[in-house]
């Protein structure tokens, strides 16, 4: 991560299975790197403060607010954005469920909701408890409505599509339980 220029570093990232090496301003967030340098504008900026979840991506498979991560600090990591969650032509089951349940309106929070839900389902399968889990020692958490609502509360939706978002996620998570 050294560079000839002051305030600039070389960052190596794998984004949606594609390797990238680029010089970035040390002040640049991972979110801005994705949007402004790679043109991956599916990831949205709603607050730039980690308060809304619109910029949620998967970093090494785990959900993160990409606005809170400096691009230089993410060097060497593998990132999956909304553009990379399907398998090219086929939609991810969560993407299909959001369509069927109308789990969005304006669509601005949607990429973050879907990335967040993908990781959230994995977290529950791995037994990570939430604030509403009755048994924090359980090997696996069953994702009922209350668990989904609690675990998805880092992703705000101002259009008020929560009811439909929960229905969409339950459809997919139910299939795994």
């Amino acid at each position, binding site marked *: 991560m050294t560079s000839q220029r002051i305030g600039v570093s070389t960052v190596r990232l794998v984004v949606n299975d594609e390797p990238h090496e680029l010089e970035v301003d040390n002040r640049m967030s991972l979110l801005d790197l994705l949007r402004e340098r790679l043109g991956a*504008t*599916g990831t949205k900026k709603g607050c730039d403060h980690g*308060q809304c979840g619109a910029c949620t991506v998967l970093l090494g498979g785990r959900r993160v607010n990409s606005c809170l991560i400096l691009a230089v600090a993410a060097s060497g990591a593998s990132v999956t954005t909304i553009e990379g969650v399907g398998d090219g032509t086929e939609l991810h089951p969560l993407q299909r469920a959001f369509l069927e349940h109308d789990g969005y309106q304006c*669509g*601005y929070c949607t*990429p973050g909701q879907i990335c967040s839900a993908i990781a959230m389902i994995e977290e529950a399968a791995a037994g990570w408890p939430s604030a509403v889990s009755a048994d924090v020692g359980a090997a696996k958490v069953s994702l009922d409505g209350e668990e989904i609502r609690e675990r998805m*509360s880092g992703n*705000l939706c*101002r259009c*008020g599509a929560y009811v439909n978002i929960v229905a969409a996620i339950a459809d997919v998570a139910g299939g795994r339980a």
Partner: protein
Amino acid sequence: MSVGEAVVRIEGRDKVTGAARYAGDIPVAGFAYGWVVQSTIARGRVSSVDDGEALARPGVLAVLHHGNAPRLGEADDATLLVLQDPRVPHLGWPVALVVATTAEEAREAAATLRIEYQVESHDAAFRAEHPRMYVPDHINPTYETETVKGDVDGALATAEVVVDATYTTPAQHNNPMEPHAAVAEWHDGRLTVHDSSQGAYAVKQALTRLFSLQPDAVRVVSEHVGGGFGNKGTARPHVVLAALGAAAVDRPVRVVLTRPQLYALTGYRTPIVQRVRLGAHRDGRLVALDHLASSQTSKVLEFTEQTALISRSMYASGALRTRHRVVALDVPTPRWMRAPGESPGSFALESAIDELAIACGVDPVELRIANEPESEPASGLPFSSRNLVACLREGARRFGWSGRDPRPALRRDGRWWRGTGVAAATYPARSNPSSASVTAEDDGRFTVRVTAADIGTGARTALTQVAADALQVPMSEVTVLIADSDFGPASVAGGSSGTASWSWAVVAACRDLLAQGAAAGTTAQANTGKAVAARPDLARHAYGAHFVEVAVDPHTGEVRVPRMLGAFAVGRIVNPLTARSQLIGGMTMGLSIALLEESTMDTRFGDFVNHDLANYHVAANADIQSIEAVFVDDPDDQLNPVGVKGLGEIGIVGATAALANAVWHATGVRHRDLPIRPDRVLNATYAV
């Protein structure tokens, strides 16, 4: 028939794959980044701007301020006249724009600007008794400020039962998920803008005047819009700043506001104090209704929320008076936020009606039905349709209202006290003049063009359904292109008027094309201006009824909402899938403003202190449990060709009152101030 079918959004795949492009996503070649610098004082003048250090920084292309920015022409809306003079009318007013080749450079350079002010004393303290409170000429948008029918004071003096209560609602911010963004590009004297807007044509009109251009020299596009709820309803300063910046540096400029910048620059709902006085017979029938609303505006632009409007159309009363007052303060300009007028107005009116029902010992559903008017109470106009009673009956049936024990504070469930509440809702069914065109393509398909905006409403999909039916073809043969001002004048996506207005123009164009034979290559155009104006005077409204169950923990002050059900009479439903979403979305925002939302003005500085999403709380997923919306039949042939009433706003109307009424039923404590915060619940409960 496509209308009436539940259709997945046409742009849905783009939205779930990240392909949908919003204004800040548009990759205009060679653009630079504009960073908005806001005033740090509430009133005064900029005395100097030292940009020496900023201009010396790498990447910085320009620093615009009132001393060097290109001159603007005229504006209907003075909030758009930015960087034109040194006057600072409120905290957060734009005082400079830094343009640089990267966002990081622009932002850091902005931090080095040294801006000196001549500070003047300011007044940002709203109160209903403010000595400068006045009677405005009109209320938003063009309604009469006052209406009077009968002898209100006389009827109140002799009424058997009187309710006299004051209700307050705080400043609230729209907070769409997408902060306002625009990228502007000048080419051969023509201005092209991608803007996050609810009305591309309205923005084009504003820019045309501001930059003294010919109408065909400005194009505004809003491909996808990340919500707005009113605060993208007309041009906002960011788009003017982008165009000024682009003119100054001779390359495209993108301006994206930060979340905190929205709070002073894009509008909010004014704080409001309402006094409602009801006089009634002992059986609950009204003899007098008096509704007085006081709100604030800025010193830049007068905006008076039409808070008492709802009382002009809702209940029969021999004596009826509605009045508005406003005071101009050194504060940001309040504008539209979802159901301006009806949202706060219904909190007061529908809470007061609940208080009357309690005072009379009448069921609140039955009391509302007993006060059904035969014609619109204030105007005397006949209703085009009025199915409020059907909403109340159907909602009560589905919710399981019958047999409800009206007595408060009786239902304990562990630490929770449970209660239920009801409130009615109404919203004007507007249709505005619009234009549209339809072209029969060589391959047999059809292309519709209309400057509609889809801010999450499902307009693109609904208009495709409407056009397919009008052309008598399947939806798959119709492409609807929207949100490009080159398609001609059209209604804004506001006032719940969008689908009603645009579908009228689309149907007219499609019928004309068929009448002409629809030969390949032909285009038919329609403008509904005359047809809209020719409609008879009627009271056209949508209706609804909310039923809410709450659980209140009196020891923590927490209010949970296990159940909300709304029954709505909203004309013809074009797409039940997206229509339900809009209503549920409105109800969700209603819950949010009932319990959480409050912009707190620090009057010492004239600043909304909680200007981000960590401190201004909007409902999160865990705040929402069961919310359901159902439709009742609402045929109405006096609206527009499709029979659409619009449903973007009615879901929020009445929701706060139903919730507050349920909290009374749960606890015996009446909350007349929103939001119903835990501290208010705690203090009120312990005071009992």
